[in-house]
């Protein structure tokens, strides 16, 4: 049983930007965030003995060599795209609980704006996702080439079966944007969004408009995990991993033929994580939900059990996921309005909230928080955290 055996003890983040670009290599960005997280934990880089790099964005060998980690004992790469940072949290917790490693670093970052864009690599690099060969042979020839188009197929069907509306997608975009107004570090700070502006924004891949899409960003973030016992000796208030799980849709490498078309990785992972934690979704004071596109927030809220399947549209309306609402979601502004840090930013924000350090966007007296990841064709991961 993994409950409460591991803690997040350090977080780090670089500045985020779009134009003119970070001016740093993706590796340098990630090293900056890693050093910040290690320092936040009160550790020396040489004490890191486990590293879990983001798929295609770094190698443990390079991190270890650059940081001076002379005793790297544990390294793995989880090929789950944006579901990786939270899936890595579980793996890191397993590693420190078992003694395979003492201090595990999870870095992630990129020049997602000034460098290669996902919208391009998703169609040009077959190896960039596990379903790449299927996409090459059965999606790309028909013009289905990039993530918003893949997920739009899911959103469209959901709208048909459950009556989910465009305004409900807009409610997600607007909630993230409102939270970004409370976060000076957010790319969309100072740029509020109203429903009429949302509805007037250009269509990209229906039902997704411009403001349904996350922000291609340059930036990086990182966190450090250690055992609960060791965490008590460190300088920061530990954030405990109460429960964590990861899962895949079936089949994970092909979207169209799924017997359960609305099933995603979270469908299996969330019940496991909440059972391990011994709490229910209703016990969460906030949730940081991987928001690559607006509908994915609705879908994950449903599949994680915050509401029933088909009820996610109603859940996000009328401020339901805003600060002060039923369940504040993505209090930093998320991928949609803070920055696309591959889901690492969601973990960092969850830790800030549970430390009580979220400033103007602090959820009052936050005890328990949930963070999810989503990647590739619907891989999922979830962690239930407590202070």
């Amino acid at each position, binding site marked *: 049983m993994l409950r409460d055996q591991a803690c997040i003890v350090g977080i780090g983040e670089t500045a985020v930007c779009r134009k003119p670009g970070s001016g740093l290599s993706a590796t340098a960005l990630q090293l900056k965030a890693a050093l910040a997280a290690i320092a936040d934990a009160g550790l020396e880089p040489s004490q890191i003995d486990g590293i879990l790099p983001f798929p295609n964005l770094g190698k443990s060998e390079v991190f270890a060599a650059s940081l001076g980690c002379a005793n790297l004992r544990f390294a793995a790469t989880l090929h789950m795209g944006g579901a990786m940072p939270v899936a890595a949290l579980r793996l890191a917790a397993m590693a420190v609980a078992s003694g395979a490693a003492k201090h595990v670093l999870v870095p992630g970052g990129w020049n997602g704006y000034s460098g290669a864009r996902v*919208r*391009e690599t998703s*169609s040009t690099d077959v190896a960039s996702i596990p379903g790449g*060969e*299927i996409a*090459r*042979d*059965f*999606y*790309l*020839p*028909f*013009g*289905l*080439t*990039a993530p*918003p*188009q893949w997920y*739009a*197929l*899911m959103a*469209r*069907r959901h709208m*048909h079966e459950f009556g989910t509306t465009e305004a409900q997608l807009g409610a997600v975009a607007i909630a993230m944007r409102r939270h970004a107004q409370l976060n000076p570090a957010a790319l969309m700070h100072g740029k509020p969004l109203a429903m009429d502006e949302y509805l007037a924004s*250009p*269509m*990209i*891949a*229906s*039902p*997704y408009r411009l403001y349904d899409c996350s922000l291609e960003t340059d930036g990086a973030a990182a966190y450090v995990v250690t055992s609960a016992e060791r965490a008590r000796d460190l300088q920061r208030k530990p954030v405990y991993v109460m429960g964590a799980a990861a899962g895949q849709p079936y*089949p994970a490498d*092909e*979207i*169209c*033929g799924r017997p359960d*078309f609305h099933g995603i990785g979270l469908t299996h992972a969330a019940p496991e994580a909440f059972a391990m934690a011994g709490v229910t979704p209703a016990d969460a004071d906030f949730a940081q939900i991987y928001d690559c596109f607006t509908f994915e927030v609705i879908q994950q809220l449903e599949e994680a059990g915050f509401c029933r399947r088909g009820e996610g549209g109603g859940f996000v309306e009328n401020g339901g996921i805003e600060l002060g609402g039923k369940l504040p979601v993505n209090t930093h502004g998320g991928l949609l309005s803070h920055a696309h840090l591959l889901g690492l930013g969601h973990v960092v924000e969850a830790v800030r909230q549970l430390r009580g350090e979220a400033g103007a966007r602090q959820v009052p007296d936050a005890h328990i928080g949930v963070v999810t990841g989503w990647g590739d064709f619907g891989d999922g991961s979830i962690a239930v955290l407590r202070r």
Partner: protein
Amino acid sequence: MSETRHAPTRPLPEMSGLSGEFYGWCNQGELRFQRCTHCERWRHVPREICAHCGSFEWSWQRSSGHGRVFSWTEVVRALHPAFGNATPYAPVIVEMDEGVRVLTRVLDCAADQLRMDMPVAVEFVAASDAVRLPYFRRRDA
């Protein structure tokens, strides 16, 4: 040196392995899916063995070519250079009468005319000298 600018190459399937066999049938004007010899379940995309019964025995069985619209997206802004001049266009999931689903396009049908469960029939379109793709066209129910 020539400064000729080439149009971006349109992505085409690899004509090898099981994908190559699938499109080989398309080139002959036949839509065929794998069908398990043991449990008789149809499957798509192509796989080496049957996920239901584990059998390696299967054959390419001819589809009725009939299906219904299951979902779609209208691509208004192309995110791949080869489709820059094709917008707007709509990738569509069709559920075949055999039960499998394919990602395709519906010919002569703007996105605002697409309807869930709309009946469609396969029609092959040459994407290059070497490959014909299974597109669909509206049909009477």
